[in-house]
């Protein structure tokens, strides 16, 4: 009996090995509870992230108003602190480019860097601008505020001068104020859209190119590859250019929080992958549990474990970087490229192995320049 069972198992495994090499492990008709996945992502991650970001931006507006009314060192510090708090939360929001956020190109209006100083200066001088215009994508958002709060001058006294004694102080105050209000308005818009959009998002659970899971997973991987891997580490480290470009780091003018922001981003990516609630420690259905449900194995190991391990390895490479990436690049850029390489190792797991298991097509293509 035992022998027979063994024999049958052998045949099954041979047949399985046979067919799996012929086609990707498609699973159009698996019984995983896709609705539960979308519900968890929506209710416990996306909506709480937007709500927190909305709160942080409301505070940013408050601190900005205090600063505008009385531009002094104390109020500048409070404004800066509020900016940094909001920027950290932003790291959980950038990957969610779906629904209203996609419609209004929210990400393009919030975190395009390097910010374009000449565009900002032109706007300040002209006092005639449409901050939502595509031409201003690199003159608004967190990076533009980074410049207004840290980059206008070498020291705080001179920087405050732009808002007080400078003959054009009213223009600087106006631009800083408008920038902040615009970020807040956009965030309110996106946050409030989810009160009705959440259900649409959850209901759209089928596996098609326009299904919520397909789109969100593509957004997630695209963000991981571009927003996180390339923008935060790869581009400044010179992986896409002839020489390193330290002026491309995130929060360039503040300069000592680039690593902290990257760390927030990696944590957010990991939480999203594992379905961990943004508030509290609960977790629910996730990409990881979906992969486990499909019993996705690579090289004898659960794919979800491999991905989580790789996120951890990447974080450990980021941990040893200087909090100031500009200093890190200029002293030992190898540590930057090693962090990039560790991040990249997960791209293959996500983009090839995970997508194949979930039977999702990539909806964007990298051009290699030929």
């Amino acid at each position, binding site marked *: 009996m035992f*022998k027979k069972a063994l*024999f049958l198992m*052998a*045949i099954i495994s*041979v*047949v399985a*090995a*046979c067919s799996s*090499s*012929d086609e990707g492990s498609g699973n159009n008709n698996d019984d995983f509870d896709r609705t539960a996945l979308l519900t968890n992502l929506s209710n416990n991650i996306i909506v709480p992230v937007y709500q927190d970001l909305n709160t942080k931006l409301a505070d940013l507006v408050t601190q900005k108003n205090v600063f505008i009314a009385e531009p002094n060192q104390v109020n500048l510090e409070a404004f800066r602190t509020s900016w940094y708090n909001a920027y950290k939360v932003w790291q959980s929001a950038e990957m969610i480019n779906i629904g209203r956020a996609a419609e209004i190109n929210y990400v393009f209006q919030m975190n395009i860097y390097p910010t374009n100083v000449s565009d900002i200066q032109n706007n300040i001088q002209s006092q005639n601008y449409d901050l939502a215009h595509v031409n201003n994508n690199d003159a608004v958002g967190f990076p533009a505020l980074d410049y207004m709060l840290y980059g206008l001058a070498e020291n705080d006294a001179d920087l405050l001068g732009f808002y007080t004694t400078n003959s054009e102080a009213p223009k600087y105050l106006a631009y800083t104020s408008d920038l902040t209000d615009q970020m807040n308005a956009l965030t309110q818009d996106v946050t409030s859209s989810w009160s009705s959009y959440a259900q649409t998002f959850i209901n759209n659970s089928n596996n098609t190119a326009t299904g919520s899971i397909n789109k969100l997973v593509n957004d997630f991987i695209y963000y991981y590859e571009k927003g996180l891997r390339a923008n935060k580490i*790869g581009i400044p*480290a*010179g*992986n896409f250019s*002839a020489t390193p470009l330290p002026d491309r780091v995130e929060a360039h003018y503040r300069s000592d929080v680039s690593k902290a922001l990257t760390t927030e981003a990696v944590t957010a990516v990991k939480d999203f992958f594992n379905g961990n609630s943004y508030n509290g420690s609960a977790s629910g259905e996730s990409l990881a549990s979906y992969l486990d449900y499909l019993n996705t194995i690579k090289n004898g190991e659960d794919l979800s474990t491999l991905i989580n391990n790789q996120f951890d390895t990447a974080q450990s490479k980021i941990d040893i970087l200087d909090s100031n990436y500009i200093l890190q690049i200029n002293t030992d*850029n*190898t540590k930057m*490229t*090693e962090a*990039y*390489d560790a991040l*990249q*190792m997960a*791209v*293959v797991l996500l983009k*090839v192995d995970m997508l194949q298991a979930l039977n999702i*097509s*990539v909806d964007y*293509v990298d051009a290699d*320049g*030929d």
Partner: protein
Amino acid sequence: MKKVALSLFVIGSLVTSCSSDDDNTTSETQIAAPATYQFERNGTSTVSYGGQTTRILMAGELVSGFSDTSKSETDISAMFAHVEGNNDFSDVDLNASNKSVRSKTAASTDYYSANTTAAAAIKADFDAFITDQVNNVFPNWSIDATAGNAGQIQQAGGGSIRYVNAKGLENNQAFAKGLIGALMADQILNNYLSVAVLDAGDNRANNDADVLDGSNNYTTMEHKWDEAFGYLYGTDDALAPQLGADNFLNKYLARVESDEDFTGIAQDVYNAFQLGRAAIVAKNYTVRDTQADIIREKISEVIAIRAVYYLQAGKVDLGTDYASAFHSLSEGFGFIYSLQFTRQPGTDSPYFSKSEVDAFTTELMEGNGFWDVTSETLDNMSESIAARFNFTVAQAGS
């Protein structure tokens, strides 16, 4: 016992039927390989690899720059990392191009997409050849080289003058032969023939359904394969390769072909390119990948054979004709450097790892470098290299 035998028999037949799907001899008969590398759709060619031709030409001018003492480090570096529109080359078409050699140096998907740290170190090696040439060799252009001092040195019998660095290394040779691995072989073997590139995104589904790449007349997968082809035949006649068309991989495939121990290798490589491309048209990816492995093996062999050949050639002149020895050893140095870009068929690994290659080049450059390298070192190195391939030192060295 009988039952076990029977079950083994059944399992065996299952394995056979399984692998016969993958068996290329069966599949190959279904694919009509054309007589030449000519592929058309609706009467128009689908073959395109202009970017590869451009880079081969750029690399050619760049290496010539090593012999032009009027050039600055910036000039030569700019030829290496060309930016569209800059007047880095004598050829206006190259100047107008948006291609760059440096950006594709140690840049394959399989080897370097998650190892940019090694890629950066390799690019830095190439940068260093340029720096050393301009800063140390150019100023000593008309001074006789001695151990520890850069300069010129003439081959015996009124032969060519060689310009070497303090260790007897010709930077131009190290650069050019190193580029055969870092640019041509790496892009062919580890990028464009890679499953990760050929099957990226929806390439396979699109190729199956004849979905073309934008407004082009080819599918993306067809084009990737052609780009691999272009790094070898980009300046040659694609329909009837003459070989020796460039000073890089194409030329050294010809050199190996002309050694009677290896005659036929050039045709093997060309045939594999042809059949693999025909397999893509026929949507038979098993045959395609088999041909990719043939190309990987043969091109890796070309690099290894030339590495051993030059080590042996250098050995003969050592102590009698330093300039000739240095010239051979400099070429050998470049080919050894290129070993890290080779690809063992059926694996994701080169025949020699980067650290093994680094150990070889460090050994060659020890002390005063080629001035005091011994025959024994060169022989040991030759044996180590040949041992991982299907040829002997004697075969390569002839």
